[in-house]
Structure formats: C-alpha cells, structure tokens
C-alpha cells in the first residue's frame, strides 16, 4: 500500500487528489496561521483506541490549546460531552457540508467563513463524498485537511494510510505542537 492510495481501492478521485502530509508541523503551522479554523468530527473518532489514546480526547486537547471551534455529528457528541467538552455545534455530516459550501455561513457571530477545516472520524465513503463535494462547491481558498487514519483523496491535504499507533502518535503531536507557542 502506498501512502497516497485511497484506502478504499476503487475510490478513484479524478484529476487532482490530496497532497499527503506526513509532517505534523505542516498542519500545526497552517492551524496557527488560519484566522478561522474549524474541526469537524464524526463518530468513528470514538472507536476505542489502544493505550496510546482516544482520538476524541486528542481533539479536545487540540481544540482547547488552539481555541478552535469543534462541530460534531449527533452520534459523536456524547463522546465529547462525557469528557466535559461541549462542542460548538452539532450537525449531521451532510448538513456540515451544505454549510461549508455556503459562503455566507459562519460559526459564530463574526460572519467569517472558516478558512481551514480539519476532518476526523469519518466513515470512509461518507468522508470522501463530503470532501469531494467541498472540492467543487465550497468557496475558493479554504484548506480542507483530513487527519483520519486513512488517506482521503479529495482534500487539500491528507494524512497517509497509517497504522492506528502511528495515527494516534501523529494526532498527539499536533495537540502538543498547537499548545506550544
């Protein structure tokens, strides 16, 4: 398996595909540079991880450290709330897509559309379909980054296919780097 092969073998994206990002520092730098970053989390994030950590807990660390809003899907919200974290909003995967495509939509009252969006915890096919839609219909200039365990082809950047341990390590590194100023 090469790192930029879509995890589902038959998900052939077309003319362009996500650039593989293996250095977490790249993601951290973009997060810090973004004026209106957003993290979107779906329910696969809460699949119990190994001893090195649970993705939901790491996302909470990233969000807290970077003061980044988090939108979760309804099935994901309980995993955040039971850890004492209240997500910024709860929307279904497709509702999130529809709002990200709307240039007038904003998370808060500042009327600013997100300029960088991190995705995590997506069922694979729902992830690539959502991101394929964003590729063509979202306002220009937004960076979409998949930080899921499996390579997603329709974003600006994506983690490569990796083992669960490697994935958790990479997520932890982002959390550490975002918190380090």
């Amino acid at each position, binding site marked *: *398996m090469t790192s930029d092969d879509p*995890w*589902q*073998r*038959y998900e*052939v*994206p*077309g*003319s*362009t595909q996500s650039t593989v990002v293996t250095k977490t520092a790249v993601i951290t730098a973009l997060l810090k540079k973004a004026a209106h970053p957003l993290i979107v989390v*779906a*329910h696969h994030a809460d699949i119990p991880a190994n001893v090195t950590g649970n993705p939901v807990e790491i996302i909470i660390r990233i969000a807290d450290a970077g003061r980044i809003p988090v939108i979760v*899907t*309804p*099935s994901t*919200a*309980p995993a955040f*709330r*039971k850890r004492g974290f209240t997500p910024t*909003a*709860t929307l*279904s*995967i*497709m*509702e999130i*897509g*529809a*709002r990200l*495509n709307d240039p007038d939509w904003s998370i808060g009252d500042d009327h600013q559309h997100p300029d960088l969006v991190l995705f995590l915890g997506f*069922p*694979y*096919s*729902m992830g690539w*379909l*959502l991101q*394929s*839609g964003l*590729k*063509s*219909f979202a306002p*220009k200039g937004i960076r979409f980054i998949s930080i899921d365990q499996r390579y997603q082809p329709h974003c600006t950047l994506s983690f490569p296919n990796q083992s669960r341990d490697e994935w958790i390590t990479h997520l932890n590194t982002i959390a550490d780097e975002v918190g380090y100023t």
Partner: protein
Amino acid sequence: MIDISSQTKRKILKMKARVKIDELIGDDIRAHGVELDIGRIIRTWEERPGPTRMPGIGDLREWDHKLLKKYPPHYLPFCDLCCLCTMGKCDLSRGKRGACGIDMAAQQSRIVLLSASIGTATHTGHARHLLEHLVETSGRDHHLDIGASVNLEAPNIRLVTGIKPITLGDLEDVIDYCEKEITQLLACCHTGQEGNNIDFESKVFHAGMIDHVAMEAADIAQISSLNFPKGDPEASLVDIGIGCVNPDKPSILVIGHNVAPSVEITDYMRDHGLEDAIDLAGICCTALDLTRYNNKAKIVGPLSHQIRFIRYGGADVIVIDEQCVRTDVVIEAQKVNAPVIATSCKNFQGLPDRTRDSVDSIVGDIISGKSLGAAILDPVKAGEVAVRLATAMFPKRKKFRAIPDEATIAAAAKACGGCDNCRRVCPNDLPLAEAIAAAGKGNLSLLGELYESCIGCTRCEGEGVCAKGLMPHTMILGASRIRMGKEKFRVRCGRGPIQDTEIRAVGGPIVMGEVPGVLGMVGCSNNPGSWKDVGFIAEEFLKRRYIVTTSGCAAMQIGMYTTENGQGLYEAYPGTFDAGSLVNCGSCVSNAHISGAAIKIASIFARRQLNSNYEEIADYVHNRVGAVGIAWGAMSQKASSIAAGFWRLGIPVIVGPHGAKYRRMLLGRKDHDEDWEVIDARTGERVYAAPTPEHLFAVAETREEAMVLIPKLCMRPSDTTKGRSIKLNHYIDLHRKFFGVMPDDMHLFVRTTADIPVAMKEDILKALRQTDWKEGDGRIPDPTLLPRLVRKGGRAK
C-alpha cells in the same frame, strides 16, 4: 344519425376503434364514406379532471422548483470527471465546465436523473412484461378487483393520468404514458440538452412520479389477476431464512422480481401433486410476490442472500427473471452443479434460447450436462422445466455445497499475510484480515460475526485481491454454516393496498399529528452494518405507535429480526394500517401503495380533488401528512426512483450511509427562517411554520441518527398542539435516549407552551429560556405553498 347501443359503447370504450360511416346526414352536413380512427378512448369518471392530466416533463416544474428552493441540492460527486461523451473525459471540479459546457452541479443532477430514469424504466418494463403476460392469461377485459374495501383502487394512476382503470386493458394506456415520459426523460440526459441543475432535479422528480404510476399498475394487475391478498391485514405469515428450505427435498430457487414464472412453477406443482414433494423458495421481490400467490412457498432472504444460498447448495435448479439478479449467477450455479433457467429477455445471462424447444429435449440436455441451463421465455414451459429438473437434479447433486468446513478454513487462514487488501475492497470496510488471522489460530468466531454485516458482494474474492488466493466471503460462510441451517423466521406476505376504511379511520389522527407518523421502511440490503438494524428501527417505532409500512428487501429484513423475547415483529404486531402496526405491502412495486396511502388521505379523508390534480395533492401531503421514508440499505437505481416519487409528493426520505453514493441530498436550512414560510390558505398571509419537515433527502451516519431524524421529519405545519406535543415527545425522548441530551433545535418546533409534552414541560421550558424562543400566537395555519389555494376573501401576500 349514429346510434351506438350501450353494449357497443362498452366495446368501444375498451379498445382502439375504427368507425366507418357510409352516409352521414346532419343539418349542415352531408357526407359519404366517412372513416373515423379513434386512437384512444379515455374513460370518464365522476370527478372532473384537474389541471395536469398526464403531465409532461415540464408541466409540474413550478411545483418542483418550490420544493427545490426549500430543499436545495447538496452534491457529493463520485469523482471530478464526466465520462459520458467522446469529447471527454472532462474535469468539472472546482468550477470548471466540460467540453459541452456542463458544470459539476448539472452533471451530478444529470447522473441522478439517469439513475432515477433507469429505476423508472425498470419498473415500467417489469409492468409492461407482466401486463402482457396477464392479458394473455386473463384477457384484456379482466376486471380489476383490488378488494371490496378498496374503492380508490389506483390513487397514483388516477392522480397522474386521470385514468380510472377498470380492466387490465386500461393499464396498457397507463404504461403507454409511462413509456413516453421515460423516453423524454432519458433524452434530457443527452449531451447538449438540459444544462441547469434545478431543471434536471425537476425531471428527477418527474421520473419518480412516473415510477409510482408504473409500480401501481404492475401491482394492481397482479393482485387482481393472480388473486393476491387484497388489502388483507391478516395476510399469511410465511417462512423466511436459509434454514427454511428442506435439504431432504428437491428445491427450486427463484430470483428476481417478475412473478410470472414462479406462478407457473406453482401451478405445475399443484397440477401434478408435487406441492409437498418439492420446496419452492425465492430471493428478492419475486419471493415476496410468490408467497402472495402460494403461501407454502418460502423466502430465502433479501438479495444479499443470493450467493450465500447458492453456495450453501440449497437449490437444485435456479430460475431467474429480472432485476437485482447476480450477474454472475451462472458461474456461481456451476460451482454447485445447479442449472439456471433464465425467463426474461432482459436477462439472458448468455444462456441459449430454448423457448421453442420441447421440454423433454431441454431437460435432457441439462441433465446430461450438455448445457448449463437455458433461456425459456414462455413462463408455462419454464415452470414445467424447472419442476422436472429439480426432481432429476436432486439425486445427482445431493445438495452439493461450495462452502468449506471449519478445519479447511482454519488451515487456509494460516496463509493470510494481513495485507488488508480484502478489507480495502469491502464496501463495509469489514475487518476481514483480522478475522482471518484469528481463524488461522483456530478461532472462527470473528469470521462468523461478519455474517450479518456482509452484503454478499464477493468483491473480497475478486481476481488478484488476495495474493494468497484466500476467499474471505467463502470463509465467512464456512464459519456460519451451522447458523445458516438454523436460520428461520416468519414474515407476513404482502397485503397490497391500504383499505379506504383504514384511511378514513386514521386519516384525521395522522393529519392532526396524533398518530405520530407513518414510516415507510423500504429498500435493499446494502446495509452499513447488520441487517438487524432495520428490524431494530422498526421495533422502536412500532412501540411508539407509529404506523410502520414496508416492502421489498426491507420487509424481509424486518422479518429476520426478533424481539427480546424471541418473537418476530410480524407475529408481535398487527398488519392493519393503524398506530403501532406493521404493514407489509409486498414487493418493490407495492411501494406505490405507500405513496398511494398518503394520496388517499388527501382524497378520501380531506376530500381533495384527485383526478389529474397532482400539485394540490402533493401540497396537501407535504404540509399535512407526517410520513417519512427510510431506505437504510438502499442500493439500486429503482430505490432512487422510488425515493424521487416520494420527494415530488413532498415526503422526506432518509438513507443509510451508502445512500450518500446517490451523490445528491436535498437539505433544508433550519437557520434560514425565510425558507420556512407557508401561506395560510384562510387569510393568504405568509406565516413562519418552522422547518417542518426539515429535509427532503438526508443521509444518516448511524442507525441512532436515523432514529432521531425520523420523528423530526414527521412534523408538519398543520400539526395540532396535541399532535405536535406527541411528535416532540418522541423527538426529544429519542434524542435523549441516544445522544444523552435534549436537541439544540427544539425551540424551532415549539410554537406555544401548549406544544410542550407535559412530562417534559419543566425541562423544556428551562431549555427554551436559554434561547431566543418567543411564544407564538397559537394560530395553526391552513398551510399551503400554492397561492391559488387561498380561499375566497383571503389574498396571497
């Protein structure tokens, strides 16, 4: 003067006619040798025709655009490219246009239209072939009898075409109309035709509407001609499951959707006293329709059971007709030495056409091994061949299986290198390599656990997928061998239409919201997880006293689920169209009875004009009838056209995660207040009616998300306070149950404190105080989207 007797009038009304008049003398006319060709005579009925009799592809555009403004398309392209013409491939991503000028939005809608048109064409083609056969066997004049309590026999047909069908022959006119519209719809997909995505979407809705007309024609034809249950809530309970097929008897497996050959098999068995000597079982909708004709027949399961049952060796002969038949069925059948009889010209499967050959020669060639099977397009002949082959093959085959035993699996599994290639081609991303590794260590339980979640596609066994040549799907079956033999459940066979009396009894409570909703559980077996999720969803809403209607593979999967105390849902809940009842309408084509029930509520309960009056009826259904469709395992193009028929009526549809691959959702924006205004038909005033229903087509990420969405999408602007309170109670209760908290959008649906469920009043008021919620004036609108329906004295503003 031309005097036509009443008997002649009847004849003329039944056929195309040519009238020759030797001499015609009137006050102002004198003519010789007049000939009149009458192409079609339309029966008139008591209700005057409305504005859209047999609408063309543009006639309901205005209505469609109203819906599409509320529920704009949200696209999910499969890839960046369009590959439909030789100017391409073209990259349409990021705002680019193709060589023909099309953009990504229009292209996605075009694909949705293609899918819906294929689905509609398939149902219409099925209806045409079935009708031709039934006209041949029962006669064009065969009177349509759908049951004594079903006076409104064809709500979709009457609404769309203005035809009140009385005989089988009348349905030919209906199918003529459908075929004409499908031709126009397909023409729209050609390069250089439609270019606007919203106009494509309108045509998708048109395809869906036509689909329900064709399905209705097919089902009322077979109900009437084959004496299926006629709206009978107590239709028989029949056996379902692989274990229902007796391994000690010869057996015939039928697969597909057109019941005609299965009926002939049954008749041949009856005529020759073989009913108890041979097991007749089916997969997919042919099986459901077969049990409506022959309640001794058995259902093996939904379409995901095809390969597993064939490899299990349960069939001594396989008879296929049309739709959803594995296209490798002949190859699979060879693995267990079972011959295949193809009975539809739509699905020859490469078999030689033996329709004109004698039964003896066909049977002889197959038994001798000279031929793998045959195509026989005469259902009567196919019936005889199937029965004689089953009897002859049974002792030869000895139920030969292509499923390994546990020891063979464990030995083979040791070769697994853990590369995960099998998982990477699995649509459900099942952890196959992990399960195989465990099997290599002697633990087959992980493989067995995958049995319910495997959709039976066998992509994991594709050429070159496993470098070691392992067959993961076969290994799952091997690990589940014993369980398959014990797989036995009960399902109520399809009852057909909803009775008019049932509509009269529950129409009011549905429209007022006091029956919390009508759930249509339909679709295929392309589930994201266990098939039992379908039954789990059904049970929850049955307990909550929703009316749960179902059809097709979903109806089977509901049957293959048992309650905590081991009871089947069809045994635990009645089959009446009433609160807390489970209504299996029948096969795919019986879906028309679900949309038909919604139309009947408008016509029978609310006395709205039905004849050729689509827009008004859809407006009524959309704003008042709390119905929602759920196709958890939707797979096919037919599922997309069925959904499209519900969309045009304004009925929301929820699909499971794989449904996102239909590439387009229709999502409302609850944060856009202006989208949720309706006209109060009493005054003409525009009033905010909340996002009711919020979406027209939505995908749910999990079973729980779907179950919370269902009560929300059952809310309608017309709900009384009591009705809204009941619906809110279910919405909030399910949200709490699955997500632990009350929903954050609850304030949108509480119009006044009277809407608040009493048991939750304190909590809800507390939550409302934390929002900008303001109590409304309590006026419930007479909601419509159509200014022309504002009553005298009122004026649309």
